[in-house]
């Protein structure tokens, strides 16, 4: 605690002095310039198109993988759905294991890492650029992604490291090394190192900067313009207090409030949709028509599809490998059960929460279309659809909700801050696991990463949305490149686990306890 006080005092003084200085805004510009120029090459590499097309290869990579897993495991997302619910309810939990982490807890914690700004701001970005049609592709990607998540989380538990003091470490870096060795395939160690590097970048990008950036956007939306790095410093101070200072109470409060904010968010979205029930049919029509024609958006059909897939992957992280880290600590004798539970994540995150955001934006008429042609009107640069208040990202979602329920932007601001914060805490953990995999376990190594993580909060809040979102996506997708290679190699192992478990479940060898 004593360590925190000087930090907090320093942060407050720093903030006040700088807020008074006239050059405050230019600090943001400097940070933005340096950031954009130093990450451009990486972004270009990840988002380069298939030769001769305007289709980014990475989007194809994710969708093909999700489709392969869906087919290989025989539509596991639908087949095991009921069993997944039973597992979360605790029907198959041994009462003698009470006091260990339950399936519900593992799912809730993993969800609070994924349900976040991707669902609020990311969807708005997708709809703003790709039009309503992006929603269709987003839902499809969410449903397919359930199979990817199932595969990676099963492996995460199966190949985790258990230490003598009772703690565990798991995730793609462990199944890439141990699983590859078991199958006699080379290169596992190399892939594990690559994954860890990308995971650190992803933790700093999507798990940190994007969150800080959009939290700041929502704050300025409510309180008026002020320099982003101020939000950054305050956020960094709180994150520092939790992950370095060990101030668990803040994290605990967040973990408890976040699920309720999620319920309030979905509930409000439902109310707005029901208030406009006469437009539901029209909105669904827009989604389907947009999915196959584009309705005039930049890039047409492909533009809508890319946006939908991109934002779905960013939001539910299926195939990325982060969930495998989150789920690997659960206590279970059957690794596959954690796979079943985890397949609910893309469903809740993308198919339910993201779709709510999309419907509210479409139904409240934020997107401007030409009444004569029925096509959407693009902005001057031709990159995105013009919106009523000239908004994008989280501000677009906020405008959509506020147009129906006046004061909702304040509730949304609170939700955004809490979601951003809980996602940052989760990703600081994923990043830390990758960091310690590379540099070894130890207090010094951990502290180095945590300090770097806090610095990136400031950069994220100060930079503008474009470069931040590009880098965040690129880093998270880079994780998926490595992780999915691993999933292809190891999927026969998951199949074996699945067949064994499923036959024991059918024969009654695996019984319900309640």
């Amino acid at each position, binding site marked *: 605690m004593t360590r925190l006080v000087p930090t907090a005092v320093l942060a407050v003084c720093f903030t006040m002095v700088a807020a008074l200085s006239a050059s405050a805004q230019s600090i943001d510009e400097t940070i933005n310039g340096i950031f954009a120029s130093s990450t451009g090459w990486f972004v270009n590499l990840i988002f380069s198109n298939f030769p001769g097309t305007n289709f980014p290869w990475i989007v194809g990579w994710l969708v093909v993988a999700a489709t392969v897993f869906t087919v290989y495991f025989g539509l596991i997302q639908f087949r095991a759905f009921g069993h997944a619910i039973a597992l979360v309810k*605790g029907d198959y*939990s041994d*009462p003698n294991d*009470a*006091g*260990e*982490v*339950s399936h*519900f*807890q*593992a799912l*809730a*914690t993993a969800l*609070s*890492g994924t349900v976040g700004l991707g669902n609020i701001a990311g969807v708005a970005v997708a709809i703003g650029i790709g039009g309503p049609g992006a929603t269709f592709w987003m839902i499809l990607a969410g449903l397919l992604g359930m199979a990817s998540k199932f595969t990676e989380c099963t492996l995460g538990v199966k190949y985790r490291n258990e230490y003598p*003091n*009772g*703690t*565990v*470490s798991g995730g793609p870096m462990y199944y890439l090394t141990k699983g590859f060795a078991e199958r006699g395939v080379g290169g596992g160690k190399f892939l594990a190192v690559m994954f860890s590097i990308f995971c650190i970048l992803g933790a700093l990008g999507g798990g940190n900067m994007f969150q800080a950036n959009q939290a700041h956007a929502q704050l300025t939306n409510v309180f008026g313009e002020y320099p982003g790095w101020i939000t950054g410093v305050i956020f960094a101070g709180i994150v520092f207090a939790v992950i370095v200072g060990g101030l*668990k109470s803040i*994290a*605990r409060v967040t*973990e*408890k409030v*976040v*699920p309720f904010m999620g319920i309030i968010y979905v509930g409000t979205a439902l109310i707005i949709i029901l208030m406009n029930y006469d437009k539901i049919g029209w909105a669904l029509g827009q989604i389907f028509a947009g999915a196959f024609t584009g309705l005039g958006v930049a890039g047409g059909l492909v533009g809508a599809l890319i946006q939908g897939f991109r934002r779905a992957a960013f939001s539910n992280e299926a195939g990325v490998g982060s969930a495998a880290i*989150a789920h690997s*600590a*659960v*206590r279970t004798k059957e690794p596959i059960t954690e796979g079943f539970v985890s397949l609910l994540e893309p469903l809740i995150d993308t198919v339910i929460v993201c779709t709510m955001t999309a419907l509210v934006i479409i139904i409240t008429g934020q997107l401007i279309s030409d009444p004569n042609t029925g096509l959407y009107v693009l902005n001057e640069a031709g990159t995105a659809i013009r919106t009523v208040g000239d908004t994008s990202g989280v501000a677009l979602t906020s405008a959509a909700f506020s147009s129906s329920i006046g004061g909702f932007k304040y509730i949304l601001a609170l939700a955004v801050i809490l979601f951003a914060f809980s996602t940052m*805490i*989760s990703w600081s*953990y994923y990043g830390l696991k990758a960091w310690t995999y590379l540099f070894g376990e130890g207090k010094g190594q951990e502290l180095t990463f945590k300090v770097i993580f806090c610095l990136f909060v400031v950069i994220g809040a100060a930079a503008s949305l474009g470069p931040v979102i590009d880098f965040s996506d690129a880093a998270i997708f880079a994780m998926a490149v490595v992780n999915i290679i691993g999933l292809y190699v190891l999927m026969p192992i998951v199949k074996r686990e699945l067949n064994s478990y499923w036959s024991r479940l059918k024969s009654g060898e695996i019984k319900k306890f309640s």
Partner: protein
Amino acid sequence: MSEKFVVGYDGSDVAKRALDFAVSRAQAQGGSILIVHVLEWSPYSFLTPEEIEERHARRKEELDRAEKALMAPLKAMIAAAGVPVETQIKYGHVAKTLCEVAKKEGATQMVIGRDGDGGLSSRVFGSVAGSLVQVAPVPCTIVP
């Protein structure tokens, strides 16, 4: 059939009084004692990633501590008084878990202390003694 007393025990003064009461009855009637210590736990609470990682180790620590600090001295003391004694440490909802143990172990009576706090918190959240009155599967004695 000899009496088997399930005693809910958390180390508090009232719990000690409840245990003394049960021991004296068991001595008089030739019964045995089963002391149950329940650690409040819900599988539906929310944990941070670090808490999840450390949970298994923490649980072991909690069980060890409860065994050493609470149960072991009691066992010695009651056995010295000539009453057969067993102990169990469980995780879960206190009243519900006590009832489950009583049913499973074929207890004939339950004994529990009450903390006498009739304040707001027990009105809102209910008390263990209050719940047991409603749901106990065997006769239940509440010791003030």
